[in-house]
């Protein structure tokens, strides 16, 4: 009699818990492949890749790195468009900032289930631990995720399975429940000890999580974007630009995005054709994008602010080049704005 090789798809974030969950199931002889969803809000790599000052930081994609450690395939899926509805209309609301963590988890498990069905995989694994996260990983949310994703009892959380009802892979004998775990709470010691036991010594544990929506400053910038647009919506470029530069909104009708260093300026260069932009030409200067509908008077103010962030900030006068989206360009001599003339309220 031949036994069927059972297959599980593991949600791989690149963090420790999902890596351990996949490893625990691999150890039970299950064929595991990883899936990683790209929402556009992922912290992964972006700012390190853009900023020159982060040039010495590791640029690895942690999910891919985890897949290599485990020797599994990893499928990275672009869900940018579909994910908008999760961010804009979270049924279960937001966490501390604009992080829709519970809706996000439901959505990702649902997408993983769809993928598993298409690819002929038997069940889904996550690295969830009861009590680990205040919004999405609580005893009460575990069944909500299972039911609202449609995964039901094909969703197995190996790290806390013993604290949860039995699932299909356990009931069918594909995995042994006694070899699963009963972790709970925010204590990371059991996971770190387990990692050591598996010989996994290098793993990512980002302090702020792996999503920009859990970041207070980023969430403020996103809320400001929605207010300026007059509606809760965004395009991919919007959310990318919120990750970059210093954002100042001197007036409701326009915002400035100011590169803070060479890498950011290079990145912003790629957006020159989409935005009116400014640069001091008489001195070293950041590139400044203007987002919105500025009047001529607003552009004069934008030029003074640009001058403030250039190396000519203490000069009596500097020359700022202004170029519109249509490519019309002119030079405006301006007096750099004094540092105390930029109120705190302008900083988004």
């Amino acid at each position, binding site marked *: 009699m031949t036994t069927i090789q059972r297959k599980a798809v593991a949600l791989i974030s690149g963090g420790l818990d999902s890596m351990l969950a996949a490893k625990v199931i691999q150890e039970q002889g299950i064929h595991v492949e990883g899936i990683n969803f790209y929402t556009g809000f992922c912290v992964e790599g972006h700012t390190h*890749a853009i900023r020159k000052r982060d040039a010495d930081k590791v*640029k*690895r994609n942690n999910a891919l790195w985890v897949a*290599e450690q485990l020797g599994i*395939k990893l499928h990275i899926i672009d869900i940018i468009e579909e994910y908008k509805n999760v961010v804009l209309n979270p049924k279960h609301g937001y966490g501390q900032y604009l992080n829709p963590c519970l809706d996000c988890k439901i959505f990702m498990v649902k997408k993983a289930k769809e993928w598993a069905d298409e690819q002929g995989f038997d069940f889904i694994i996550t690295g969830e631990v009861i009590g680990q996260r205040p919004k999405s990983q609580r005893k009460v949310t575990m069944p909500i995720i299972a039911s609202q994703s449609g995964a039901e009892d094909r969703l197995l959380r190996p790290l806390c399975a013993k604290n949860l009802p039995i699932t299909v892979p356990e009931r069918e004998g594909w995995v042994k429940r006694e070899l699963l775990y009963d972790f709970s709470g925010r204590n990371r010691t059991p996971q770190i000890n387990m990692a050591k036991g598996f010989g996994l010594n290098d793993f990512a544990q980002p302090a702020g999580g792996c999503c920009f929506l859990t970041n207070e400053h980023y969430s403020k910038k996103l809320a400001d974007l929605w207010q300026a647009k007059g509606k809760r919506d965004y395009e991919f470029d919007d959310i990318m630009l919120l990750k970059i530069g210093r954002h100042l909104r001197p007036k409701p009708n326009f915002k400035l995005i100011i590169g803070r260093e060479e890498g950011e300026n290079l990145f912003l260069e790629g957006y020159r054709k989409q935005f009116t932009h400014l640069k001091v030409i008489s001195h070293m200067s950041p590139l400044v994008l203007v987002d919105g509908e500025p009047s001529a008077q607003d552009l004069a103010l934008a030029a003074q602010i640009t001058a403030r962030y250039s190396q000519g900030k203490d000069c009596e006068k500097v020359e700022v080049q202004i170029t519109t989206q249509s490519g019309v360009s002119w030079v405006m001599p301006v007096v750099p704005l004094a540092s105390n003339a930029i109120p705190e309220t302008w900083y988004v």
Partner: protein
Amino acid sequence: MANYELNAKGLLCPMPVIKVQQKIQQLSKGDILMVYCTDPGAQFDLPAWCRVHGHTLLAVQQQPHEITISLRVG
């Protein structure tokens, strides 16, 4: 076996990987794919992605503001 090209310039990781993943679904074993990128992260991510999926990394060529990665579909 044929040669193909993919322009992933201006895309930040993991988008170059996602684009390569999509492109390779249309290719056959042994085909060669040249990927043009600007994100420095691609020179780490694409080789890692090749390793986990059994494709062969042929070369990574770095120019001042561009990286060309060639691989053979496994």
